[in-house]
């Protein structure tokens, strides 16, 4: 991946400069760089602690902006000189108004946990961090409707509504850092999508600041409202390219009275599909997650201490693992269904599973989940990851992982100093595989071996090159593998309509 570190850009960023990257943006207009005068102006709108810039009055050393300029994986690096952290929507509006006038690029940033480089600048755009907008505006425990600022961390929202016996409709490994505004802007999926659906369904309203500073308030707490085009759907998943999400109204779900999980050990991946069918039949409405990790992913997770490993004797001969979670209103009812399922699985003539572990306490429940949720972190500790988040038919999951590994082997790249592991894990229930290629370091050689190989492979299955991670800067050139030319053309028209000056998150999604 390109590793851009621009030390100082005193003059206007031009198209010619941006062409020196691999991607040639066609919609990027000439954008201005931030100057000292801009920062002086921002310092009038925001309190001193909300402006972090190498320019005065902040005059911070550039290292202090490092975390804002770099993504979570350390794969994408921007060169912003200025981070703004507004406290309310009015401030966001004034910032955007100024940036629209001055044609300064703006990168909205939440928890910066995205995996496609969408939350860091491509050059020296202003980073607009939503972290200070962390007020919970209201919560109705009867309807479960939560209205909050965009900068609230997902886990804090979960903790806030817990005493009212509600849970957020989404959950993901990054919950301790990701913010709800970012979740909405990326239409985050996660571990609960199977049960609670996508954000396109659970978000009831948005407050958005448009690129020119206009505030569009669609913060509704209405469950049903069919009065015209549903504009909020455009912003859900727009990855900050159409405007800045500042407020979210979301429908939370009643917390299950009983939760249980079990890890099932399978000898062969081909048993996952029939297992999924049986599990769905037996568990029916209490099934809340069905996750798959291959042996490689399990080994990495346990190697890096993510959750406690199963007994060696249980893991012998295992090809892959499935984590099943149930959530329901009555513990005895759920346990009865679960026990019936497990008994029938174990006593079948041709058992699909060799063994499994059923959690016996809340501590074990978390530990089993950690084995799945911790894979992402284990991968980042093991090396540098190329992540391909794809939607493909369930039957193809193993074939895609194997084909990728074989392809790399043929290119002589499967070695300790190049590609260490090729693993797969993901949301079987949603048809979403996370193919991870773990390398010693990022390198052009590995990247060109993987792309467009993986995208073409996905296209051959008529799948999606980005199931839930989004486009960011990583896949702007790859949309055509999944969307037709007409669709892409109309997406460009919508981008032009909202942001003809091209200041919102330039170089991302639609270029």
């Amino acid at each position, binding site marked *: 991946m390109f590793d851009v570190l621009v030390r100082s850009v005193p003059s206007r960023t031009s198209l010619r400069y941006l062409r020196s990257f691999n991607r040639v943006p066609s919609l990027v207009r000439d954008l201005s760089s931030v100057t000292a005068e801009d920062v002086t102006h921002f310092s009038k709108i925001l309190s001193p602690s909300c402006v972090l810039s190498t320019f005065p009055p902040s005059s911070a050393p550039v290292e202090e902006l490092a975390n804002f300029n770099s993504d979570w994986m350390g794969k994408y690096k921007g060169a912003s000189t200025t981070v703004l952290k507004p406290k309310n929507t009015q401030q966001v509006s004034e910032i955007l108004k100024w940036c629209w006038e001055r044609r300064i690029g703006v990168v909205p940033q939440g928890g910066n946990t995205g995996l496609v480089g969408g939350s860091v600048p491509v050059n020296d755009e202003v980073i607009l961090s939503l972290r200070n907008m962390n007020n919970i505006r209201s919560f109705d425990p009867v309807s479960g409707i939560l209205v909050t600022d965009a900068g609230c961390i997902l886990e804090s929202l979960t903790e806030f509504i817990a005493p009212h016996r509600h849970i957020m409709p989404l959950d993901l490994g990054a919950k301790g850092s990701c913010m709800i505004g970012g979740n909405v802007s990326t239409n985050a999926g996660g571990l609960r999508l199977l049960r609670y659906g996508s954000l396109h369904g659970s978000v009831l309203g948005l407050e958005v600041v448009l690129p020119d500073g206009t505030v569009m308030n669609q913060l509704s707490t209405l469950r049903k409202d069919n009065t015209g085009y549903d504009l909020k759907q455009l912003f859900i998943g727009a990855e900050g390219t159409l405007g800045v999400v500042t407020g979210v109204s979301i429908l939370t779900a009643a917390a299950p009275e009983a939760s249980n999980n*079990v890890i099932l050990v399978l000898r062969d991946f081909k048993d996952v599909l029939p297992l999924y069918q049986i599990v769905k039949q037996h568990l029916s409405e209490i099934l809340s997650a069905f996750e798959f990790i291959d042996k490689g992913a399990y080994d990495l997770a346990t190697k890096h201490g993510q959750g*406690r490993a*199963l007994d060696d004797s*249980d893991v012998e001969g295992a090809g892959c693992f499935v984590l099943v979670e149930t959530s329901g209103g009555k513990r005895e009812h759920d346990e009865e269904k679960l026990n019936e399922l*497990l008994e029938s699985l*174990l006593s079948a003539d041709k058992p699909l599973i060799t063994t499994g*572990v059923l959690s016996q306490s*809340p501590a074990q429940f978390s530990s089993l989940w950690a084995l799945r949720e911790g894979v992402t972190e284990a991968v980042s500790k093991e090396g540098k990851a190329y992540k391909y988040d794809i939607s493909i038919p369930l039957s193809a999951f193993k074939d895609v992982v194997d084909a990728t590994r074989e392809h790399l082997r043929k290119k002589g790249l499967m070695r300790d100093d190049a590609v260490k592991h090729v693993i797969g894990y993901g949301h079987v229930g949603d048809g979403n595989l996370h193919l991870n290629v773990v390398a010693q370091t990022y390198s052009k050689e590995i990247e060109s071996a993987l792309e467009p190989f993986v995208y073409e492979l996905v296209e051959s299955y008529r799948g999606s090159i980005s199931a839930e991670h989004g486009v960011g800067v990583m896949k702007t050139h790859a949309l055509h593998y999944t969307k037709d030319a007409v669709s892409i053309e109309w997406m460009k028209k919508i981008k032009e309509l909202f942001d003809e000056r091209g200041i919102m998150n330039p170089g991302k999604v639609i270029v």
Partner: protein
Amino acid sequence: MYPSTVRLLNILVPIKRCVDYAVKIRVNPQQTGIDLNVKHSMNPFDEIAVEEAVRIRERMKEKVSSIKVVTIGPPKSAETLRTALAMGADSAIHVELPESAPSPEPLGVAKALQAVIAREKEKGGVDLVIMGKQAIDDDAGQTGQILAGLLDWPQATFASKVDVDEANGVVNVAGEIDGGSQVLKCKLPLVVTTDLRLNEPRYASLPNIMKAKKKPIEKLSPADLRVDLTPRLETLKITEPPKRVGGGKARCVSNVDELIAKLKDAGLVTS
């Protein structure tokens, strides 16, 4: 006291069902106790005790004749017994108390366990009692020691390593003490209480969970044991500790006099 010939070991593991350690506990509105409508699980130290018993059997094989678990508690405690059976215990005893009964105290529990052990004499007796050093709800840490006293058995507490030396008919138990650890050489029968470092309890695997359903649980009442579990202590009131007040704005003091003045202001120093 016992000959040093090889003996078959009968292990008894008393366990307790407690509020799970991850739960945020709240005082109930009547201020008589904590809200018990929360998740419960096996006392972690007792889990370690069950694990240790199973490991001893894995090492000594058929020389361990039986591993029995026992609990004293309401009907729901039976689930905790099933978990222990799934981890490898052979059978269980449930001294059942009514749902509304107050929690028994260490002395009462120890007397009940003594009665259970006396009953077991006809079935081969009990040679080794392994139990948690304390329960995480009351943190009393007394039951093991009281039991040993009532039975007049040796006790090895806060065990971080248990080594059954059958050849010599003794058990070497390494226990944690303030200064480090000590090793006690104990004769059987013996009471051992477990500490955190002893082992890491296993997950119960599915086949074992299924098998556990068929293992026997014997139900008894305190009356069967001729034991009275009425508490001897009366809880007057339970309240949360006062909320911690912040230390005030973080300020550096420039010298000792300023520090003393500030301490006096805060009422922490009288003169």
